């Protein structure tokens, strides 16, 4: 399979060192911000309440950034409080839509990182981005993302679950292209794992209310 020339993209780094983790997306922090935004508790600092999952669990950013918190990949999980269980359906739906948007944004962040990372890796005298197999994988992920964003808010929990599963597949495609670096906990692999757990908790197939 012959390499195909790829023009340099605007803003592309000249030679980012492979293996250097990309700027973090900050999925756990953004998840907490989403909780706060939906519950209108965005006055700064962690929100007092979070939106519960259909099964009555709450996923939140692990409070302690130094790694001593009980959660991993920046997340912690606990049962919802009575106040949280009283969060009304419209707020839960808004949170669901927001979580899907967050997952989309993370996949896009990973896609942009993959473009930079693969442009800096060479094989057979050409950068990996010029390989048709790599181009196809990136295109697949980009198309999945485009389609997901074009779909509008999912109608119901099952549709939301299916949308997340499609994003999980797109994310896994990108992680496979990143090879071992996609398995680093402090890179896109760790962040996408956190997003997959969030989808597993909040948008599981078969939990239609």
């Amino acid at each position, binding site marked *: 399979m012959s390499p195909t020339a790829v023009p340099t993209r605007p803003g592309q780094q000249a030679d980012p060192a492979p293996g250097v983790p990309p700027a973090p997306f900050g999925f756990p922090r953004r998840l907490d911000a989403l909780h706060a935004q939906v519950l209108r508790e965005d006055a700064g600092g962690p929100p007092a309440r979070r939106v519960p*999952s259909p099964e009555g669990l709450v996923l939140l950013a692990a409070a302690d950034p130094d*790694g001593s918190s009980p959660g991993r990949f920046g997340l912690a999980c606990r049962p919802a409080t009575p106040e949280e269980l009283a969060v009304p359906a419209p707020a839960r739906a808004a949170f669901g839509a927001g979580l899907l948007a967050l997952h989309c944004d993370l996949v896009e962040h990973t896609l942009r990182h993959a473009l930079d990372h693969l442009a800096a890796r*060479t094989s057979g005298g050409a950068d990996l981005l010029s390989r048709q*197999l790599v181009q196809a994988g990136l295109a697949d992920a980009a198309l999945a993302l485009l389609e997901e964003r074009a779909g509008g808010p999912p109608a119901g929990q099952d549709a939301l679950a299916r949308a997340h599963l499609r994003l999980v597949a797109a994310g896994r495609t990108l992680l496979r292209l990143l090879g071992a670096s996609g398995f680093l906990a402090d890179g896109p692999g760790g962040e996408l794992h956190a997003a997959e757990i969030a989808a597993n908790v909040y948008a599981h*197939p078969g939990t239609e209310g």
Partner: protein
Amino acid sequence: MSDTGGLAAPPAVTYPTVYAPPAAPLAGTDLDPPLRALDRHCRELSEGMREAGAAVDRDPDAIAGLLHLPAVGFQAQGSLPPEYRDTGAHPAGPVQASASSLGWAVTAERLAYGDAGVLLACPGPSLSGLAVEALADDAQRTAYYERVTSAPTWTFFGLTEPRKGSAAMELETSLAPDDDGTLVLNGEKRYVGTAARAQTGVVFCRRAPGPWGIEAVLLDTAQQGFEAELLPMVGLRGARISHIRLTDLRVRPEQVLGRHRPPSRRGLYGALHVLYRGRPGIAGMALGVTQAVCDYTAAHRPAMPASARGRLDGVLDRAAALRRLVHTVAGEIDHGVVDVPRIGAVKSRAAALAEETTLLAAELLGPASLIEHPWLEKAYRDVRAFEYMEGTGAVHRLSVFHGLVKGDLLGSGPVPEPYVTPAGVSARAGGRSAG
């Protein structure tokens, strides 16, 4: 970076499940009596590996306190020459049966059913032993095996580089004489299992241009100029994936493996020899976790609807077919035939199946299954490593494509040819060939 690889450790967990691996033989298995005995033996050895796996996931260095587990000692025995084996601790029959590629695939599957992370955390020759077997002269071989059997010894196989992945032909780590003629090693290796905790290992490096300019050097990690650190990985943390920095590390002539051999049968030959032979073992591990996840899912959702059961059965059907293929390619390796595209295809398909199976299990076990089933969440993370270990799926897909074009992928191929040729060496796109 912390001792646990920079990843916040999870709380200690106990897996609330009855451990009941399937009785031998597994579907798709057609083994001769010694290998069936090995299969049964490893099934028994895998008891207790789940608990060990939780400990190693929490702290990969916990393996040092788990050396008493029979599986930990057993897995290395088959990779030792008979004169170095611990005959008092392990039955000779299963050890001997595990010494082949097919035997290792069987062993890897059964022990990975227990825990793949523990299997990869174990001391022993592992891939570096395959390199020594392929390349070393008598003195190097003796020194190596005496070293790794004198005490629990961890080893590494340093091929992959930050900029080049595991493309053996293109590696940049250099071996060059300094002003007084001493060979000096400089470069970096990344995503190398166990390196930050190993005592010895093999590093591949470039001494001269061209395919025959690659050398394999046996290092002691205590040598000045060797630095390694654990990388924080999403899963399979027992593998203790590491980053190595080599800075003006002075190499004695006797550390160059295969110094008695012609260049065409040294460094690159050794790298490819090991990579091809490692792949059926990775495929076996992927199938072991696949089977374990299926069994776990069925045990925790006994009243599964027919549609869900059908999806799980579909996974088991594919696992049986892949198991047959793994055993076929491993058996061929044992008979000196290295079918590069088929070996890669089998490994990549097994890795993909393991990944798909964990996604399916997370779905079938219901909302928050990745919170409520810590063992599943660990398997869900672990299996993703099989995708890139011993070559990514993309690399193997290209190899399959080349095998298809050459016409030998689906059987009755042309006359075998050497898999390392001066005209076009590739670790990625070789044909069916004699190993």
